[in-house]
Protein backbone atom coordinates (compact mmCIF):
# COMPACT_ATOMS: atom_id res chain seq x y z
CA UNK A 1 0.00 0.00 0.00
CA UNK A 2 1.09 3.52 -0.66
CA UNK A 3 2.04 5.43 2.44
CA UNK A 4 3.40 8.86 3.23
CA UNK A 5 7.13 8.89 3.92
CA UNK A 6 9.21 11.86 4.97
CA UNK A 7 12.86 12.50 4.20
CA UNK A 8 14.32 14.88 6.74
CA UNK A 9 17.29 15.41 4.42
CA UNK A 10 15.12 17.49 2.13
CA UNK A 11 12.64 19.04 4.59
CA UNK A 12 13.01 22.82 4.65
CA UNK A 13 10.71 23.40 7.58
CA UNK A 14 8.65 25.80 5.46
CA UNK A 15 5.40 24.38 6.91
CA UNK A 16 3.61 24.53 3.58
CA UNK A 17 2.49 20.93 4.23
CA UNK A 18 0.66 22.10 7.33
CA UNK A 19 -1.16 24.75 5.36
CA UNK A 20 -1.87 22.48 2.42
CA UNK A 21 -3.29 19.92 4.87
CA UNK A 22 -5.45 22.52 6.58
CA UNK A 23 -6.66 23.75 3.21
CA UNK A 24 -7.41 20.25 1.92
CA UNK A 25 -9.47 19.53 5.02
CA UNK A 26 -11.06 22.97 5.35
CA UNK A 27 -14.81 22.93 5.69
CA UNK A 28 -15.33 26.02 3.56
CA UNK A 29 -13.53 27.93 0.83
CA UNK A 30 -12.38 24.89 -1.13
CA UNK A 31 -11.62 27.00 -4.19
CA UNK A 32 -9.11 29.38 -2.64
CA UNK A 33 -6.60 28.93 0.18
CA UNK A 34 -6.74 32.60 1.12
CA UNK A 35 -10.51 32.37 1.50
CA UNK A 36 -10.29 29.10 3.45
CA UNK A 37 -7.50 29.98 5.85
CA UNK A 38 -7.38 33.76 6.13
CA UNK A 39 -7.48 34.84 9.80
CA UNK A 40 -7.92 31.23 10.98
CA UNK A 41 -5.77 29.31 13.38
CA UNK A 42 -4.95 26.11 11.49
CA UNK A 43 -5.14 22.64 13.03
CA UNK A 44 -3.41 20.44 10.47
CA UNK A 45 -3.08 16.66 10.59
CA UNK A 46 0.57 16.89 9.61
CA UNK A 47 3.02 18.79 11.81
CA UNK A 48 6.60 19.91 11.33
CA UNK A 49 8.93 18.93 14.15
CA UNK A 50 12.26 20.67 14.26
CA UNK A 51 15.36 21.16 16.32
CA UNK A 52 19.13 21.11 15.94
CA UNK A 53 18.98 22.19 12.32
CA UNK A 54 16.77 19.26 11.33
CA UNK A 55 13.10 19.37 10.51
CA UNK A 56 10.61 16.85 9.24
CA UNK A 57 6.89 16.43 8.84
CA UNK A 58 4.98 14.01 11.04
CA UNK A 59 1.61 12.59 10.10
CA UNK A 60 -0.14 9.25 10.60
CA UNK A 61 2.18 6.37 9.64
CA UNK A 62 -0.78 4.07 8.98
CA UNK A 63 1.04 1.40 11.00
CA UNK A 64 0.44 -2.24 10.15
CA UNK A 65 -0.35 -2.93 13.78
CA UNK A 66 -1.74 0.42 14.93
CA UNK A 67 -1.68 1.26 18.64
CA UNK A 68 -4.47 3.77 18.16
CA UNK A 69 -6.80 1.11 16.84
CA UNK A 70 -5.96 -1.22 19.74
CA UNK A 71 -6.62 1.56 22.20
CA UNK A 72 -9.94 2.53 20.63
CA UNK A 73 -12.76 1.58 23.02
CA UNK A 74 -15.62 2.14 20.59
CA UNK A 75 -14.36 0.52 17.40
CA UNK A 76 -14.22 3.85 15.61
CA UNK A 77 -10.67 3.32 14.38
CA UNK A 78 -10.23 0.71 11.73
CA UNK A 79 -7.23 -0.64 9.83
CA UNK A 80 -8.30 -1.61 6.34
CA UNK A 81 -6.45 -1.75 3.01
CA UNK A 82 -3.30 -0.40 4.63
CA UNK A 83 -5.04 2.65 6.03
CA UNK A 84 -6.08 3.62 9.51
CA UNK A 85 -9.43 5.37 9.24
CA UNK A 86 -11.76 6.85 11.79
CA UNK A 87 -15.54 6.52 11.83
CA UNK A 88 -16.67 9.77 13.39
CA UNK A 89 -20.14 8.30 14.03
CA UNK A 90 -18.71 5.69 16.40
CA UNK A 91 -16.10 7.88 18.11
CA UNK A 92 -16.99 8.69 21.72
CA UNK A 93 -14.17 11.20 22.20
CA UNK A 94 -12.27 9.30 24.93
CA UNK A 95 -8.89 10.35 23.43
CA UNK A 96 -7.37 6.94 24.15
CA UNK A 97 -6.03 6.91 20.60
CA UNK A 98 -4.30 10.23 21.17
CA UNK A 99 -2.65 8.77 24.26
CA UNK A 100 -1.61 5.61 22.43
CA UNK A 101 -0.15 7.04 19.23
CA UNK A 102 3.66 7.14 19.65
CA UNK A 103 3.99 9.69 16.85
CA UNK A 104 1.46 12.21 18.12
CA UNK A 105 -0.28 11.84 14.79
CA UNK A 106 -3.80 11.58 16.19
CA UNK A 107 -4.99 14.86 17.65
CA UNK A 108 -8.05 16.67 18.97
CA UNK A 109 -10.12 18.11 16.18
CA UNK A 110 -12.03 21.39 15.87
CA UNK A 111 -15.33 19.94 14.72
CA UNK A 112 -15.37 16.29 15.66
CA UNK A 113 -13.55 14.72 18.64
CA UNK A 114 -10.31 13.56 17.02
CA UNK A 115 -8.64 13.85 13.63
CA UNK A 116 -5.87 12.11 11.81
CA UNK A 117 -4.44 11.92 8.31
CA UNK A 118 -6.69 10.03 5.93
CA UNK A 119 -4.25 10.39 3.01
CA UNK A 120 -6.70 12.94 1.58
CA UNK A 121 -8.97 10.07 0.56
CA UNK A 122 -12.05 11.82 1.92
CA UNK A 123 -11.33 15.18 0.34
CA UNK A 124 -9.04 14.89 -2.66
CA UNK A 125 -8.55 12.51 -5.50
CA UNK A 126 -5.26 10.69 -5.77
CA UNK A 127 -2.30 12.30 -4.08
CA UNK A 128 -2.29 13.75 -0.56
CA UNK A 129 -2.14 17.56 -0.44
CA UNK A 130 1.02 17.65 1.71
CA UNK A 131 2.87 15.50 -0.84
CA UNK A 132 1.60 17.46 -3.80
CA UNK A 133 2.53 20.80 -2.26
CA UNK A 134 5.98 19.95 -0.86
CA UNK A 135 8.43 22.19 -2.73
CA UNK A 136 11.43 19.91 -2.18
CA UNK A 137 10.00 16.41 -2.47
CA UNK A 138 10.60 15.80 1.26
CA UNK A 139 7.21 14.12 1.63
CA UNK A 140 6.72 11.14 -0.62
CA UNK A 141 3.66 8.99 -1.26
CA UNK A 142 4.78 5.59 -2.41
CA UNK A 143 4.55 1.86 -1.93
CA UNK A 144 7.49 0.47 0.03
CA UNK A 145 8.05 -2.88 1.69
CA UNK A 146 6.15 -3.53 4.92
CA UNK A 147 6.95 -1.08 7.66
CA UNK A 148 9.80 -2.41 9.77
Amino acid sequence: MKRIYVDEKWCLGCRLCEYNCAFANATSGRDDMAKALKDREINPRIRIEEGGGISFAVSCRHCDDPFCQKACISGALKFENGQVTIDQEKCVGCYSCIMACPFGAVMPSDGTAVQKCDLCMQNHQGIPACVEGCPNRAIIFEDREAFA
Partner: protein
Amino acid sequence: MPGIHYIYPAYEVARNQNRCISCRACQQQCANEVHHYDQELKMMVSQDDNCVNCQRCVSLCPTRALKIEPTTNAFKKNHNWQQNKIEEIYRQAATGGVLLSSMGNPEDFPVYWDKILINASQVTNPSIDPLREPMEGVTFLGKKSVEIKRGPNGKIITKTAPQLKLNVPILFSAMSYGSISYNAHESLARAAEALGTFYNTGEGGLHQDFYRYDKNTIVQVASGRFGVHPEYLNAAAAIEIKMGQGAKPGIGGHLPGEKINAEVSRTRMIPEGTDAISPAPHHDIYSIEDLHQLVHSLKEATNYEKPVIVKIAAVHNVAAIASGIARSGADIIAIDGFRGGTGAAPTRIRDNVGIPIELALAAVDKRLRDEGIRNNISLVIGGSVRSSADVIKAIALGADAVYIASAALIALGCHLCRACQVGKCNWGIATQRADLVRRLNPDIGYQRLVNLVHAWEHEIMEMMGGMGINAIESLRGNRLMLRGVGLSEKELEILGIKHAGE
Protein backbone atom coordinates in the same frame (compact mmCIF):
# COMPACT_ATOMS: atom_id res chain seq x y z
CA MET B 1 21.83 54.26 7.32
CA PRO B 2 20.06 57.60 7.16
CA GLY B 3 21.40 60.78 5.60
CA ILE B 4 24.17 60.86 3.05
CA HIS B 5 24.65 57.07 3.13
CA TYR B 6 21.00 56.31 2.51
CA ILE B 7 20.08 54.35 -0.61
CA TYR B 8 16.41 53.64 -1.14
CA PRO B 9 15.67 49.90 -1.52
CA ALA B 10 15.79 48.83 -5.15
CA TYR B 11 12.87 46.43 -4.67
CA GLU B 12 9.71 46.61 -2.68
CA VAL B 13 7.73 43.66 -1.43
CA ALA B 14 4.12 44.09 -2.53
CA ARG B 15 2.07 41.99 -0.13
CA ASN B 16 -1.62 41.59 -0.76
CA GLN B 17 -2.84 41.57 2.83
CA ASN B 18 -6.23 40.28 1.66
CA ARG B 19 -4.56 37.11 0.47
CA CYS B 20 -1.78 36.74 3.07
CA ILE B 21 -2.65 34.02 5.60
CA SER B 22 0.50 34.65 7.69
CA CYS B 23 1.77 31.11 7.10
CA ARG B 24 5.26 32.59 7.34
CA ALA B 25 6.69 30.43 4.57
CA CYS B 26 8.23 33.63 3.12
CA GLN B 27 9.88 34.42 6.44
CA GLN B 28 11.19 30.91 6.87
CA GLN B 29 12.57 30.82 3.31
CA CYS B 30 14.24 34.22 3.11
CA ALA B 31 17.92 34.06 4.06
CA ASN B 32 18.03 37.83 3.65
CA GLU B 33 15.50 38.25 6.47
CA VAL B 34 13.10 40.41 4.52
CA HIS B 35 9.87 39.05 5.99
CA HIS B 36 8.73 38.75 9.57
CA TYR B 37 5.49 38.44 11.50
CA ASP B 38 4.63 41.42 13.64
CA GLN B 39 2.95 40.19 16.80
CA GLU B 40 1.38 43.56 17.57
CA LEU B 41 0.09 44.27 14.10
CA LYS B 42 -0.80 40.57 13.71
CA MET B 43 0.40 40.60 10.14
CA MET B 44 3.42 39.92 7.98
CA VAL B 45 5.67 42.92 7.34
CA SER B 46 8.77 43.35 5.16
CA GLN B 47 12.21 44.87 5.40
CA ASP B 48 12.57 45.90 1.75
CA ASP B 49 16.22 47.01 2.12
CA ASN B 50 17.32 43.39 2.39
CA CYS B 51 15.47 42.14 -0.68
CA VAL B 52 17.59 40.98 -3.64
CA ASN B 53 14.57 39.99 -5.73
CA CYS B 54 15.41 36.30 -5.90
CA GLN B 55 11.69 35.48 -6.06
CA ARG B 56 11.96 32.61 -3.55
CA CYS B 57 9.13 33.97 -1.40
CA VAL B 58 6.98 34.69 -4.44
CA SER B 59 7.51 31.15 -5.69
CA LEU B 60 6.62 29.55 -2.36
CA CYS B 61 3.74 31.76 -1.24
CA PRO B 62 0.76 29.36 -1.23
CA THR B 63 -1.86 32.08 -1.75
CA ARG B 64 -0.08 34.24 -4.35
CA ALA B 65 -0.08 37.12 -1.92
CA LEU B 66 3.41 38.35 -2.84
CA LYS B 67 5.15 40.10 -5.66
CA ILE B 68 8.39 42.02 -5.82
CA GLU B 69 8.30 45.36 -7.57
CA PRO B 70 11.18 47.56 -8.64
CA THR B 71 10.91 50.75 -6.68
CA THR B 72 9.34 53.73 -8.35
CA ASN B 73 11.40 56.03 -6.16
CA ALA B 74 13.67 57.73 -8.66
CA PHE B 75 16.26 60.46 -8.93
CA LYS B 76 15.68 63.21 -11.44
CA LYS B 77 15.75 61.64 -14.91
CA ASN B 78 19.12 61.86 -16.61
CA HIS B 79 20.24 59.94 -19.71
CA ASN B 80 23.87 60.34 -18.77
CA TRP B 81 23.78 59.92 -15.00
CA GLN B 82 21.52 56.89 -14.72
CA GLN B 83 20.26 56.09 -11.25
CA ASN B 84 22.46 53.01 -10.78
CA LYS B 85 25.56 55.03 -11.76
CA ILE B 86 24.75 57.58 -9.07
CA GLU B 87 23.99 54.94 -6.46
CA GLU B 88 27.25 53.14 -7.20
CA ILE B 89 29.09 56.35 -6.51
CA TYR B 90 27.24 56.64 -3.19
CA ARG B 91 28.22 53.09 -2.33
CA GLN B 92 31.86 53.57 -3.20
CA ALA B 93 31.99 56.93 -1.44
CA ALA B 94 30.69 55.21 1.67
CA THR B 95 32.96 52.16 1.59
CA GLY B 96 36.00 52.87 -0.57
CA GLY B 97 35.56 49.39 -1.98
CA VAL B 98 35.49 47.69 -5.35
CA LEU B 99 31.93 46.95 -6.47
CA LEU B 100 31.16 43.25 -6.78
CA SER B 101 28.58 41.56 -8.95
CA SER B 102 27.56 38.08 -9.99
CA MET B 103 26.31 36.20 -13.02
CA GLY B 104 26.71 37.57 -16.53
CA ASN B 105 27.05 41.11 -17.83
CA PRO B 106 23.49 42.50 -17.77
CA GLU B 107 24.24 45.77 -19.55
CA ASP B 108 22.62 46.95 -22.74
CA PHE B 109 25.15 45.64 -25.26
CA PRO B 110 23.97 44.02 -28.50
CA VAL B 111 22.99 40.37 -28.32
CA TYR B 112 24.00 39.15 -31.76
CA TRP B 113 22.08 35.88 -31.37
CA ASP B 114 18.94 38.02 -31.50
CA LYS B 115 20.04 39.71 -34.73
CA ILE B 116 20.61 36.45 -36.57
CA LEU B 117 17.85 34.47 -38.28
CA ILE B 118 17.81 30.83 -39.32
CA ASN B 119 16.95 29.48 -42.77
CA ALA B 120 14.35 26.85 -43.74
CA SER B 121 13.69 24.79 -46.84
CA GLN B 122 10.88 25.71 -49.25
CA VAL B 123 9.94 24.01 -52.55
CA THR B 124 13.35 23.41 -54.07
CA ASN B 125 14.91 21.39 -51.28
CA PRO B 126 12.89 19.17 -48.99
CA SER B 127 12.78 19.72 -45.27
CA ILE B 128 13.07 16.70 -42.98
CA ASP B 129 10.62 15.54 -40.35
CA PRO B 130 12.82 14.60 -37.37
CA LEU B 131 10.06 12.49 -35.85
CA ARG B 132 9.90 10.23 -38.90
CA GLU B 133 13.38 10.30 -40.34
CA PRO B 134 16.74 9.52 -38.77
CA MET B 135 18.64 12.52 -37.40
CA GLU B 136 22.20 12.50 -36.11
CA GLY B 137 22.85 14.53 -32.99
CA VAL B 138 26.12 12.93 -31.86
CA THR B 139 29.19 15.13 -31.81
CA PHE B 140 32.82 14.16 -31.24
CA LEU B 141 35.20 16.68 -29.73
CA GLY B 142 38.94 16.36 -30.32
CA LYS B 143 41.57 16.51 -33.04
CA LYS B 144 40.34 15.15 -36.36
CA SER B 145 42.58 13.20 -38.71
CA VAL B 146 43.00 15.15 -41.91
CA GLU B 147 44.38 12.36 -44.05
CA ILE B 148 43.67 8.66 -44.25
CA LYS B 149 46.65 6.60 -43.14
CA ARG B 150 47.15 2.94 -43.99
CA GLY B 151 49.14 0.29 -42.19
CA PRO B 152 51.67 -2.07 -43.84
CA ASN B 153 48.90 -4.46 -44.92
CA GLY B 154 46.89 -1.66 -46.51
CA LYS B 155 44.26 -1.43 -43.79
CA ILE B 156 43.15 2.00 -42.69
CA ILE B 157 44.59 3.02 -39.32
CA THR B 158 41.52 3.95 -37.28
CA LYS B 159 43.29 5.06 -34.11
CA THR B 160 42.58 8.75 -33.59
CA ALA B 161 43.48 11.32 -30.99
CA PRO B 162 41.28 10.99 -27.88
CA GLN B 163 37.72 12.16 -28.50
CA LEU B 164 34.79 13.14 -26.31
CA LYS B 165 31.51 11.68 -27.51
CA LEU B 166 28.48 13.91 -26.88
CA ASN B 167 24.96 12.70 -27.51
CA VAL B 168 23.89 16.34 -27.72
CA PRO B 169 26.15 19.24 -28.68
CA ILE B 170 25.67 20.77 -25.22
CA LEU B 171 27.95 20.49 -22.18
CA PHE B 172 27.61 21.98 -18.71
CA SER B 173 30.40 24.48 -18.26
CA ALA B 174 32.74 24.98 -15.38
CA MET B 175 31.31 25.90 -12.00
CA SER B 176 33.43 25.06 -8.99
CA TYR B 177 32.35 23.24 -5.89
CA GLY B 178 32.58 26.21 -3.55
CA SER B 179 31.02 28.70 -5.90
CA ILE B 180 28.03 26.37 -6.21
CA SER B 181 26.73 23.84 -3.74
CA TYR B 182 27.22 20.11 -3.41
CA ASN B 183 23.63 19.52 -4.48
CA ALA B 184 24.04 21.70 -7.56
CA HIS B 185 27.13 19.68 -8.50
CA GLU B 186 25.34 16.42 -7.92
CA SER B 187 22.45 17.58 -10.13
CA LEU B 188 24.86 18.51 -12.94
CA ALA B 189 26.85 15.28 -12.66
CA ARG B 190 23.78 13.06 -12.70
CA ALA B 191 22.25 15.02 -15.57
CA ALA B 192 25.45 14.78 -17.62
CA GLU B 193 25.47 11.01 -17.09
CA ALA B 194 21.81 10.64 -18.03
CA LEU B 195 22.21 12.82 -21.13
CA GLY B 196 25.46 11.34 -22.38
CA THR B 197 27.34 14.61 -22.10
CA PHE B 198 29.75 16.25 -19.68
CA TYR B 199 29.82 18.56 -16.71
CA ASN B 200 32.84 20.51 -15.57
CA THR B 201 34.26 20.63 -12.04
CA GLY B 202 35.47 24.19 -12.35
CA GLU B 203 38.64 25.00 -10.49
CA GLY B 204 37.54 23.79 -7.08
CA GLY B 205 38.63 20.18 -7.30
CA LEU B 206 36.35 17.17 -7.38
CA HIS B 207 34.44 15.95 -4.32
CA GLN B 208 35.17 12.29 -3.55
CA ASP B 209 31.48 11.42 -3.93
CA PHE B 210 31.51 12.48 -7.57
CA TYR B 211 34.42 10.32 -8.77
CA ARG B 212 31.78 7.82 -9.86
CA TYR B 213 30.65 10.17 -12.63
CA ASP B 214 34.17 10.05 -14.12
CA LYS B 215 33.00 9.18 -17.64
CA ASN B 216 30.96 12.40 -17.74
CA THR B 217 33.35 14.69 -15.92
CA ILE B 218 35.70 17.35 -17.22
CA VAL B 219 38.18 18.41 -14.56
CA GLN B 220 39.66 21.85 -14.56
CA VAL B 221 43.21 22.96 -13.90
CA ALA B 222 43.22 26.67 -13.16
CA SER B 223 45.79 29.16 -11.96
CA GLY B 224 45.20 28.30 -8.29
CA ARG B 225 45.66 24.55 -9.06
CA PHE B 226 43.15 23.77 -6.31
CA GLY B 227 42.48 20.09 -5.75
CA VAL B 228 44.74 18.98 -8.62
CA HIS B 229 46.43 15.60 -8.13
CA PRO B 230 46.90 12.49 -10.30
CA GLU B 231 43.69 10.76 -9.21
CA TYR B 232 41.75 13.95 -9.93
CA LEU B 233 43.17 14.19 -13.43
CA ASN B 234 42.48 10.55 -14.08
CA ALA B 235 38.95 10.71 -12.68
CA ALA B 236 37.80 12.57 -15.77
CA ALA B 237 37.02 12.16 -19.42
CA ALA B 238 38.91 15.35 -20.29
CA ILE B 239 41.04 18.00 -18.64
CA GLU B 240 40.44 21.71 -19.07
CA ILE B 241 43.13 24.32 -18.53
CA LYS B 242 41.35 27.49 -17.51
CA MET B 243 43.22 30.51 -18.78
CA GLY B 244 40.34 32.90 -18.50
CA GLN B 245 36.66 33.37 -17.81
CA GLY B 246 34.24 35.47 -19.83
CA ALA B 247 32.83 37.29 -16.81
CA LYS B 248 36.24 38.50 -15.68
CA PRO B 249 38.91 38.26 -18.35
CA GLY B 250 42.38 39.07 -17.14
CA ILE B 251 41.79 38.58 -13.46
CA GLY B 252 41.84 35.65 -11.11
CA GLY B 253 39.31 34.45 -8.60
CA HIS B 254 38.70 34.86 -4.93
CA LEU B 255 36.52 32.48 -2.95
CA PRO B 256 36.11 34.00 0.51
CA GLY B 257 37.09 31.97 3.55
CA GLU B 258 33.50 31.82 4.80
CA LYS B 259 32.69 29.49 1.92
CA ILE B 260 35.64 27.16 2.64
CA ASN B 261 33.91 24.70 4.96
CA ALA B 262 35.32 21.27 5.84
CA GLU B 263 34.14 19.61 2.63
CA VAL B 264 35.24 22.43 0.33
CA SER B 265 38.56 22.59 2.20
CA ARG B 266 39.22 18.86 1.67
CA THR B 267 38.22 19.06 -1.99
CA ARG B 268 40.34 22.14 -2.70
CA MET B 269 43.24 20.91 -0.58
CA ILE B 270 43.49 24.18 1.36
CA PRO B 271 42.93 24.92 5.07
CA GLU B 272 39.40 25.50 6.28
CA GLY B 273 38.34 29.14 6.45
CA THR B 274 41.20 30.48 4.33
CA ASP B 275 40.50 32.51 1.22
CA ALA B 276 40.97 30.58 -2.02
CA ILE B 277 42.81 32.94 -4.31
CA SER B 278 43.37 32.08 -7.95
CA PRO B 279 46.10 34.28 -9.42
CA ALA B 280 45.29 36.29 -12.54
CA PRO B 281 47.79 34.44 -14.73
CA HIS B 282 49.11 30.91 -14.50
CA HIS B 283 52.55 31.73 -13.17
CA ASP B 284 54.08 29.02 -15.33
CA ILE B 285 52.39 30.15 -18.55
CA TYR B 286 53.65 33.29 -20.21
CA SER B 287 53.62 32.06 -23.81
CA ILE B 288 52.08 29.51 -26.16
CA GLU B 289 55.26 27.43 -25.64
CA ASP B 290 54.61 27.41 -21.88
CA LEU B 291 51.00 26.42 -22.54
CA HIS B 292 52.29 23.62 -24.77
CA GLN B 293 54.33 22.35 -21.80
CA LEU B 294 51.34 22.26 -19.47
CA VAL B 295 49.15 20.59 -22.11
CA HIS B 296 51.77 17.88 -22.50
CA SER B 297 52.41 17.56 -18.75
CA LEU B 298 48.71 16.87 -18.30
CA LYS B 299 48.66 14.41 -21.20
CA GLU B 300 51.72 12.68 -19.78
CA ALA B 301 50.02 12.43 -16.38
CA THR B 302 47.00 10.80 -17.98
CA ASN B 303 48.75 8.49 -20.44
CA TYR B 304 47.68 10.52 -23.51
CA GLU B 305 44.19 9.09 -23.13
CA LYS B 306 42.25 12.26 -22.45
CA PRO B 307 41.64 15.31 -24.60
CA VAL B 308 42.93 18.57 -23.17
CA ILE B 309 40.75 21.66 -23.40
CA VAL B 310 42.10 25.19 -23.13
CA LYS B 311 39.52 27.70 -22.01
CA ILE B 312 39.95 31.40 -22.67
CA ALA B 313 37.80 34.47 -22.35
CA ALA B 314 36.70 36.20 -25.55
CA VAL B 315 38.97 39.24 -25.76
CA HIS B 316 40.05 41.54 -28.57
CA ASN B 317 42.79 39.32 -30.00
CA VAL B 318 40.89 36.10 -29.53
CA ALA B 319 41.47 34.81 -33.06
CA ALA B 320 45.24 35.06 -32.85
CA ILE B 321 45.24 33.55 -29.36
CA ALA B 322 43.06 30.67 -30.53
CA SER B 323 45.44 30.06 -33.41
CA GLY B 324 48.26 29.74 -30.91
CA ILE B 325 46.23 27.36 -28.75
CA ALA B 326 45.43 25.23 -31.80
CA ARG B 327 49.18 24.76 -32.20
CA SER B 328 49.84 24.09 -28.51
CA GLY B 329 48.81 20.46 -28.65
CA ALA B 330 45.43 21.08 -27.05
CA ASP B 331 42.52 19.08 -28.45
CA ILE B 332 39.68 21.48 -27.76
CA ILE B 333 39.47 25.22 -27.32
CA ALA B 334 36.69 26.67 -25.20
CA ILE B 335 35.84 30.34 -25.57
CA ASP B 336 33.77 32.15 -22.98
CA GLY B 337 31.97 35.32 -24.05
CA PHE B 338 31.53 38.52 -22.08
CA ARG B 339 28.01 37.55 -20.99
CA GLY B 340 29.32 34.47 -19.19
CA GLY B 341 28.38 34.07 -15.56
CA THR B 342 30.37 34.14 -12.36
CA GLY B 343 29.87 33.65 -8.66
CA ALA B 344 31.58 36.99 -8.04
CA ALA B 345 33.47 39.49 -10.14
CA PRO B 346 34.34 43.15 -9.89
CA THR B 347 31.37 44.93 -11.48
CA ARG B 348 33.49 47.15 -13.71
CA ILE B 349 35.31 44.18 -15.18
CA ARG B 350 32.20 42.08 -15.64
CA ASP B 351 30.40 44.91 -17.37
CA ASN B 352 33.21 46.36 -19.50
CA VAL B 353 35.81 43.73 -20.35
CA GLY B 354 35.65 41.14 -23.11
CA ILE B 355 33.72 40.87 -26.35
CA PRO B 356 30.50 39.20 -27.51
CA ILE B 357 30.89 35.46 -28.01
CA GLU B 358 29.12 35.54 -31.40
CA LEU B 359 31.83 37.77 -32.88
CA ALA B 360 34.63 35.89 -31.13
CA LEU B 361 33.34 32.54 -32.38
CA ALA B 362 33.00 33.71 -35.98
CA ALA B 363 36.44 35.30 -35.92
CA VAL B 364 38.12 32.25 -34.39
CA ASP B 365 36.46 29.74 -36.70
CA LYS B 366 37.41 31.81 -39.74
CA ARG B 367 40.99 32.28 -38.59
CA LEU B 368 41.47 28.57 -37.92
CA ARG B 369 39.97 27.68 -41.31
CA ASP B 370 42.05 30.28 -43.12
CA GLU B 371 45.16 28.85 -41.52
CA GLY B 372 44.14 25.30 -42.36
CA ILE B 373 44.23 24.19 -38.72
CA ARG B 374 40.51 23.98 -37.95
CA ASN B 375 40.73 20.16 -37.84
CA ASN B 376 43.53 20.37 -35.28
CA ILE B 377 41.11 21.42 -32.63
CA SER B 378 37.44 21.42 -31.69
CA LEU B 379 35.69 24.61 -30.75
CA VAL B 380 33.32 24.88 -27.80
CA ILE B 381 31.75 28.21 -26.96
CA GLY B 382 29.86 29.53 -23.99
CA GLY B 383 28.92 32.77 -22.35
CA SER B 384 25.18 33.04 -22.47
CA VAL B 385 23.71 30.41 -24.71
CA ARG B 386 20.09 30.93 -23.75
CA SER B 387 18.06 28.64 -25.97
CA SER B 388 18.20 25.93 -28.61
CA ALA B 389 18.12 28.68 -31.25
CA ASP B 390 21.35 30.09 -29.83
CA VAL B 391 22.83 26.58 -30.04
CA ILE B 392 21.85 26.27 -33.73
CA LYS B 393 23.30 29.70 -34.50
CA ALA B 394 26.52 28.91 -32.63
CA ILE B 395 27.02 25.65 -34.51
CA ALA B 396 26.23 27.30 -37.85
CA LEU B 397 28.81 29.98 -37.01
CA GLY B 398 31.38 27.22 -36.55
CA ALA B 399 31.18 25.84 -33.01
CA ASP B 400 31.42 22.08 -32.45
CA ALA B 401 29.39 22.28 -29.26
CA VAL B 402 28.26 24.78 -26.67
CA TYR B 403 28.81 25.14 -22.96
CA ILE B 404 25.81 26.14 -20.85
CA ALA B 405 25.95 27.17 -17.20
CA SER B 406 23.64 30.10 -16.52
CA ALA B 407 20.86 28.27 -18.38
CA ALA B 408 21.57 25.16 -16.30
CA LEU B 409 21.43 27.13 -13.05
CA ILE B 410 18.18 28.74 -14.14
CA ALA B 411 16.80 25.23 -14.68
CA LEU B 412 17.87 24.50 -11.08
CA GLY B 413 15.89 27.46 -9.77
CA CYS B 414 18.23 30.45 -10.20
CA HIS B 415 16.23 33.62 -10.82
CA LEU B 416 19.28 35.69 -11.80
CA CYS B 417 19.03 38.00 -8.80
CA ARG B 418 22.80 38.34 -9.20
CA ALA B 419 23.66 38.23 -5.52
CA CYS B 420 25.76 35.02 -5.57
CA GLN B 421 28.70 36.82 -4.01
CA VAL B 422 26.76 37.20 -0.77
CA GLY B 423 26.63 33.41 -0.34
CA LYS B 424 23.01 33.39 0.83
CA CYS B 425 21.41 31.90 -2.26
CA ASN B 426 17.83 31.15 -1.34
CA TRP B 427 17.64 28.52 -4.09
CA GLY B 428 20.45 26.42 -2.60
CA ILE B 429 22.77 26.95 -5.58
CA ALA B 430 25.42 29.59 -4.85
CA THR B 431 25.81 28.88 -1.15
CA GLN B 432 27.54 26.54 1.27
CA ARG B 433 25.11 27.11 4.16
CA ALA B 434 23.72 23.67 4.98
CA ASP B 435 20.15 24.86 5.55
CA LEU B 436 20.16 26.61 2.15
CA VAL B 437 21.98 23.87 0.22
CA ARG B 438 19.24 21.51 1.34
CA ARG B 439 16.73 23.48 -0.71
CA LEU B 440 18.08 22.03 -3.92
CA ASN B 441 17.04 18.39 -3.99
CA PRO B 442 19.23 16.78 -6.69
CA ASP B 443 16.44 14.30 -7.48
CA ILE B 444 14.44 17.28 -8.70
CA GLY B 445 17.42 19.25 -10.00
CA TYR B 446 18.93 16.58 -12.22
CA GLN B 447 15.52 15.79 -13.75
CA ARG B 448 14.98 19.44 -14.60
CA LEU B 449 18.40 19.62 -16.29
CA VAL B 450 17.64 16.47 -18.27
CA ASN B 451 14.26 17.90 -19.26
CA LEU B 452 15.82 21.17 -20.38
CA VAL B 453 18.47 19.57 -22.57
CA HIS B 454 15.98 17.08 -24.02
CA ALA B 455 13.65 19.95 -24.87
CA TRP B 456 16.47 21.82 -26.58
CA GLU B 457 17.52 18.67 -28.40
CA HIS B 458 14.00 18.28 -29.82
CA GLU B 459 14.00 21.91 -30.92
CA ILE B 460 17.46 21.61 -32.49
CA MET B 461 16.28 18.61 -34.51
CA GLU B 462 13.12 20.47 -35.57
CA MET B 463 15.11 23.48 -36.75
CA MET B 464 17.74 21.35 -38.49
CA GLY B 465 15.01 19.33 -40.17
CA GLY B 466 13.42 22.56 -41.33
CA MET B 467 16.68 23.49 -43.03
CA GLY B 468 16.83 20.08 -44.67
CA ILE B 469 19.83 19.10 -42.57
CA ASN B 470 19.91 15.71 -40.84
CA ALA B 471 23.16 15.88 -38.86
CA ILE B 472 24.85 18.34 -36.54
CA GLU B 473 27.96 17.70 -38.62
CA SER B 474 26.29 19.22 -41.70
CA LEU B 475 25.20 22.30 -39.80
CA ARG B 476 28.65 23.08 -38.43
CA GLY B 477 30.08 26.23 -39.97
CA ASN B 478 27.17 26.35 -42.41
CA ARG B 479 26.86 30.11 -42.28
CA LEU B 480 24.66 30.20 -45.36
CA MET B 481 21.91 29.00 -43.03
CA LEU B 482 22.14 32.33 -41.17
CA ARG B 483 21.13 35.86 -42.08
CA GLY B 484 21.60 39.05 -40.08
CA VAL B 485 18.99 41.67 -39.39
CA GLY B 486 19.82 45.26 -38.53
CA LEU B 487 23.56 44.67 -38.60
CA SER B 488 26.23 46.88 -40.15
CA GLU B 489 28.45 45.75 -43.03
CA LYS B 490 31.32 45.34 -40.57
CA GLU B 491 29.32 43.19 -38.19
CA LEU B 492 28.13 41.00 -41.07
CA GLU B 493 31.70 40.73 -42.32
CA ILE B 494 32.98 39.56 -38.95
CA LEU B 495 30.08 37.15 -38.48
CA GLY B 496 30.63 35.95 -42.05
CA ILE B 497 26.92 36.01 -42.79
CA LYS B 498 24.74 37.82 -45.30
CA HIS B 499 22.02 40.29 -44.43
CA ALA B 500 18.42 39.10 -44.54
CA GLY B 501 17.14 39.57 -48.10
CA GLU B 502 20.52 38.89 -49.67
